[in-house]
């Protein structure tokens, strides 16, 4: 137990040094860094414009009012951007397996998944985070719910949500260990994320059960938002969010270790 704790502490401490190296690498090309981020802002404006145009036309989805829908949408983008910023290198697992770069990570005394994730910092997705914050702030205002507790809760929900998304993508990208080519699974994971964008009760009963209990993406936006709405019936579900997130993450991690055992390596 003491050993385990020490090991975790070591990984946490090292994260700073990885971040530092990543940051310095980004700064090695200052001009692309700036242009990429400017492009990132345009990219996010593109998604905001899409949401905005959509909501100038539709004022409710099912039984949910416009501000409620906006909060759910904003929360899903928030969780997703947190995931995106810190876990983006997961998407390279397939490439690492194909080129054999993963071998390098396996001969170091650190957790391989940690090394994959810590090895790179996203350079152009800060705009998505900004978009999410704007959407959440606006919707909270419309709902008259800009309280400290709500903001704290949204932070917890965002982190939990990012763990849920990360779990999805860990499983999707771990498929590369079996199949080498895993882009289909990666994009499947991206697609599953889309469930979180809209209120979960627009889906049929079967789908709703699946996205609540099997692939719990509904916990990345829909259920946590219920706490802000003060929706008595679903309040308990809302509070379960962090627990569900940790549980699904544990499952995904277990799958990752199993997949790694099947890894063959490439010839060189």
């Amino acid at each position, binding site marked *: 137990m003491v050993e385990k704790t020490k090991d975790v502490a070591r990984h946490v401490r090292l994260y700073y040094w990885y971040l530092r190296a990543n940051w310095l690498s980004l700064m090695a090309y200052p001009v*692309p860094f700036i*242009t*990429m981020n*400017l*492009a*990132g802002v*345009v*990219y*996010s*404006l*593109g*998604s905001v*414009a*899409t949401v905005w*145009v*959509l909501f*100038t*036309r*539709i*004022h*409710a*989805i*099912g039984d949910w009012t416009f501000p409620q829908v906006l909060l759910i949408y904003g929360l899903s983008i928030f969780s997703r951007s947190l995931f995106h910023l810190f876990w983006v290198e997961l998407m390279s697992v397939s490439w690492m397996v194909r080129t054999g770069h993963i071998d390098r990570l396996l001969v170091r005394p650190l957790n391989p998944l940690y090394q994959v994730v810590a090895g790179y910092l996203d350079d*152009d997705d800060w705009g998505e985070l900004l978009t999410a914050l704007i959407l959440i702030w606006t919707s909270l205002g419309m709902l008259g719910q800009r309280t400290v507790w709500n903001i704290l809760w949204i932070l917890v929900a965002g982190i939990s949500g990012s763990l849920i998304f990360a779990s999805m993508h860990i499983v*999707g990208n771990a*498929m590369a260990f*079996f*199949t080498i*080519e*895993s*882009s*289909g*699974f990666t*994009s*499947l994971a*991206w*697609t*599953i994320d*889309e*469930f979180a964008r*809209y*209120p979960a009760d*627009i*889906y*049929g009963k079967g*789908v709703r059960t699946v996205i609540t209990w099997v692939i719990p993406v509904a916990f990345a936006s829909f259920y946590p938002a219920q706490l802000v709405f003060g929706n008595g019936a679903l309040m308990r579900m809302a509070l379960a969010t962090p627990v569900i997130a940790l549980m699904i993450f544990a499952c995904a991690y277990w799958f990752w270790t199993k997949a790694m055992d099947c890894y063959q390596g490439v010839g060189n």
Partner: protein
Amino acid sequence: MKYLAYTRCEFLRGFRYRANYCATLGGALIMVVIQWSLWTAVYRNTGVIAGISLGSMISYTMMGRVVSGFLSEPVALPAGKRIWSGEIVHDLVKPADLHFQLLFQNLGNALFKLVSTGLPLLTVLWLTGVLKVPRLPVLAVFVVSMLMGYVTVFSTSFLSAVVTFHTKSRVGIDHVYTVVELLSGMYFPLDFFPGWLRTVADFLPFKSIHYVPLGIWSGIIAPGAVASSLRHQLIWTMLMVVASRILWSGAVRSLTIQGG
């Protein structure tokens, strides 16, 4: 034609990854479920939005899922100067034109997506009664329009890639692709746009990627307006191909004469 060999080769390559394919099909089905549920829920409170009924909307978005693979952003295009230089040298020593080679190679990939994902999806949607296949003349016009949509989506990325070669920048169209997606009508028909944005979108080439073919299929573009939409597509398609040629030969010349 020798370029069709590239198409065939790329088409067959898709068959190598079976598990990957199952995942892609699963993802496509999920998008259908999400979009169908969303629009059904949206229309629960109203009958018509921006002049579009639920039936036309479902037809537009569901068919949009069927052709989304075919009309998706080409991923295999080289970007960045160094890779381009390598590709161009490669091109110069081969008796094939790289521009057309990429166009046809990518067509193979797009066709694979259409046959392997689009057709099963279409069959399922047709059997469940979600999608109705329009009359033959409409269908024929739709196919022509969709092919022009393909050339547009390819040319957009190709032009962007060649421009990055000339400007030595790393930012390409794929970094701001959400804007293209919005303007192309991938998420919803352009009829949703406010007036000024509609004017902008009507002028730009991107609407020929999704809006025109899907609008024809779903009847959102009124029969009277089909001819002018097709004209818009044709003019832009030709313009983009010509522009690609000019910039492309410029890139080749700059590389051979000035060494890049």
